[in-house]
């Protein structure tokens, strides 16, 4: 296996859309590239870039990548429903929304990601997954792995080791999948469990599955070995050289426009704002002095922002003026703890300075914020 560091980008530009005279023969049917970055946003941006800019007619591409701990949700999913956001924030773990469909997954360096780029016409997920299974069996013939009709790869007929998602555009398409080599299963199960109650939404739900690492089946396996085996099989099937080209997703010269794509994937508007419309209906049971105050909260959230906000408080628990200020402020603002905290603490500045009032306000607001 030869890893070639990319210094001269001329040959790559030939398959790109710059109208330069092309001297490199593009007769080869495939290209294997691997990212040097472990940043989920950068890697997702590379997928976008290849999808938008590369001509896949003559040359298909296999992209290999791994990420440092992150949760990745599908294009049409609801992060509040799919993962434990508070835990993610505590662990400073990244949350990304990819452009392909499908469910939520946990990535860390023990998981490898494979993206198969083809033209729209050549889009064929089953073939790709069969390639992966063939590579695994070539590496370890005793592995019991097979592809299901839901495009999962199962180990020992019961454990999911790979999930699939795809994105189709006008002329090109990609199919990507994960492969669990040695991921942290404990973290995986805790971050992918959402404590949210009372959420109603048409967002794509995830189908939970029992998972296992290939490492558990055979401790001699490493991520590098798996990547190499799959690249080898791809090379054979596409009749190309088995060599993997490293690319740096931060290289703007090689991938013009990539930093904009990376930035966009990190914006709140993309990660949270693209959540399909959902509603929250829950009851806050707040312990106040010697009793428990029950507060019914109903909110409609669209584009990640609170469209409608109804809070049923006991009468006169808060002065009516302040209560309506709260509802007015929340309406139209992001369903986001940071923004809500800023808003409610600011409102406190302009209302009567009364300790009792302040403690009630803080109690209510903290409970509201905990929902987000």
């Amino acid at each position, binding site marked *: 296996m030869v890893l070639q560091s990319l210094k001269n980008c001329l040959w790559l530009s030939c398959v790109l*859309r710059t*109208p330069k005279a092309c001297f490199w023969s593009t007769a080869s049917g495939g290209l294997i590239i691997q990212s040097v970055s472990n940043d989920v946003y950068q890697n997702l941006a590379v997928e976008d870039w290849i999808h*938008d*800019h590369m*001509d896949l007619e003559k040359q298909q591409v296999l992209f290999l990548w791994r990420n440092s701990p992150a949760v990745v949700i*599908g*294009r*049409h999913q609801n992060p509040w429903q799919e993962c434990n956001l508070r835990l993610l*924030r505590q662990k*400073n773990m990244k949350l990304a929304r990819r*452009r*392909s*469909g*499908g*469910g939520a997954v946990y990535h860390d360096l023990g998981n490898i990601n494979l993206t198969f780029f083809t033209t*729209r016409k050549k*889009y*064929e997920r089953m073939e790709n997954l069969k390639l992966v299974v063939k590579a695994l069996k070539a590496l370890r013939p005793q592995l019991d792995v097979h592809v299901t009709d839901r*495009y999962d790869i199962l180990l020992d007929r019961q454990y999911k080791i790979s999930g699939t*998602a795809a*994105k*189709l*555009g*006008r*002329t090109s*398409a990609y199919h990507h999948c994960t492969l669990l080599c040695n991921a942290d299963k404990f973290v995986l199960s805790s971050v992918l469990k959402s404590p949210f109650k009372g959420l109603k939404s*048409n967002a794509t739900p995830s189908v939970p599955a029992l998972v296992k690492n290939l490492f558990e089946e055979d401790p001699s396996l490493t991520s590098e070995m798996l990547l190499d085996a799959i690249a080898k099989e791809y090379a054979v099937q596409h009749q190309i050289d088995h060599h993997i080209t490293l690319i740096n997703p931060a290289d703007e010269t090689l991938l013009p*426009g990539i930093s*904009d*794509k990376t930035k*966009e994937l990190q*914006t709140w*508007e993309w990660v949270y*704002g*693209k959540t*399909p*419309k959902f509603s929250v209906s829950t009851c806050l049971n707040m312990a106040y002095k010697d009793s428990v105050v029950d507060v019914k909260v109903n909110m409609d959230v669209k584009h990640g*922002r609170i469209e409608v906000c109804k809070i049923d408080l006991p009468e006169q628990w808060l002065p009516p003026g302040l209560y309506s200020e709260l509802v007015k*402020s929340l309406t*139209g*603002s*992001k369903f986001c*703890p*940071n*923004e809500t*905290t*800023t*808003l*409610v*603490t*600011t*409102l*406190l*500045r302009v209302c*009567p*300075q009364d300790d009792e009032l*302040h403690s009630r306000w*803080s109690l209510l*607001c*903290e409970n509201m914020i905990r929902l987000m």
Partner: protein
Amino acid sequence: VCIHRVRSCSSIRFIKSKYVCVFDKSALKFSHQQRLFRTSAVSCGQIVQFKLSDIGEGITEVTVKEWYIKEGDSVSQFDSICEVQSDKASVTITSRYDGVIRKLHYSIDDIAFVGKPLVDIEIDASKGVASEEDVVETPPMSHEEHTHQEIKGHKTLATPAVRRLAMENNIKLSEVVGTGKDNRILKEDILNYLAKQTGAILPPSPKAEIVAPQRKAEAVPAAPKDKARKIPVPASRPIAFAGKDKTEPVTGFQKAMVKTMSAALKIPHFGYSDEIDLTQLVQLREELKPLAEIRGVKLSFMPFFIKAASLGLLQYPILNASLDENCQNVTYKASHNIGVAMDTEQGLIVPNVKNVQVCSVFDIAVELNRLQSLGSAGQLGTSDLTGGTFTLSNIGTIGGTYAKPVILPPEVAIGALGKIQVLPRFNSKGEVFKAQIMNVSWSADHRIIDGATMARFSNLWKSYLESPASMLLDLK
């Protein structure tokens, strides 16, 4: 015969602003297909039902997840129309035609069927209906100079609007590098080409024009405000200006600012400024910094400023007070919860350090570190952001000398600290020496605080900082 089609509808996005519709007499034969006549415009097109094309893998139905356009919007060929999902695959459906969307056949979350109409598009009659196959060539153009152009084997792809822009500016499309999908020439490419010609750097146009068609649906934050702009050199040909005004609702952090500042406006402010010689403090901090680092804490100047302020407040408690709504009562706050203005990505927030009167300088440094890291992660809690009684704003870290800070209600005073500059000053012997000078600008509520009080407080605060050893005498 050449007419301009006037767009009639209410909410068409500016990106697809002008659309030239050209037809000759032969097109009149299609006129029997015209259906829509509005009072403000004349439509000349026929309605075509754009069917959902084959997704592949034998899929027959998909769920509509997001519309990128709405009825009445203009679309160009290859613009994104909607996003549909089928079995873990998300598919972007792009338009096959140039035209105006007249009907959406599905709502969000509906099941759409392959081969059945997805949207109705009113297209320009002269263009004719494109074949069922995916069209790669550009639609036929009447401008003879800009028919299919071949660049080294590639056909140039560009929408009619882009072609018109090129024609108006006498640009050959073959000379323009396309940055869109499949080498498409976008409006931005024409403008960049023009900019290079005239030497002008055009104002950044809305981001949505630069990226590939997929992402036009959502508003993207405007380009950074501090982008340098050259004054355009007078050009021989007119430069097309693509910048557009953008109106956004005031939400979130900005809303909070509006509320706070509107309330602050009611407070009659007066200002008092002075200059502080921090030469000794700078030296002291250099000595203490490594000690703090050993304890795992970053020591800036703020902990000293904050502690000195608290010592000053002990002598002048009225600066740590609050005036009630009717200006009937003044409440002297027992705790010195000193707020520190912080600039985050989202905007200005002011967390406070609680009970500075019983904290050591090191304690304050620890707490500041905690607040700063929470602040930059956007994870400050409500208790961190409420209960402040006095505020310091270290605007000097960004720049500036004197400022006019605004008091944050319900407080009555605030101080803004400028940057530390090395300036020549005279010492007691009349010699010039290098001094580390920082300016402070105080604002206070003139309803209950007078100038003398503010001045005396400032002098005391200044004396603590100019000779830090004196703080030792009064530290509690």
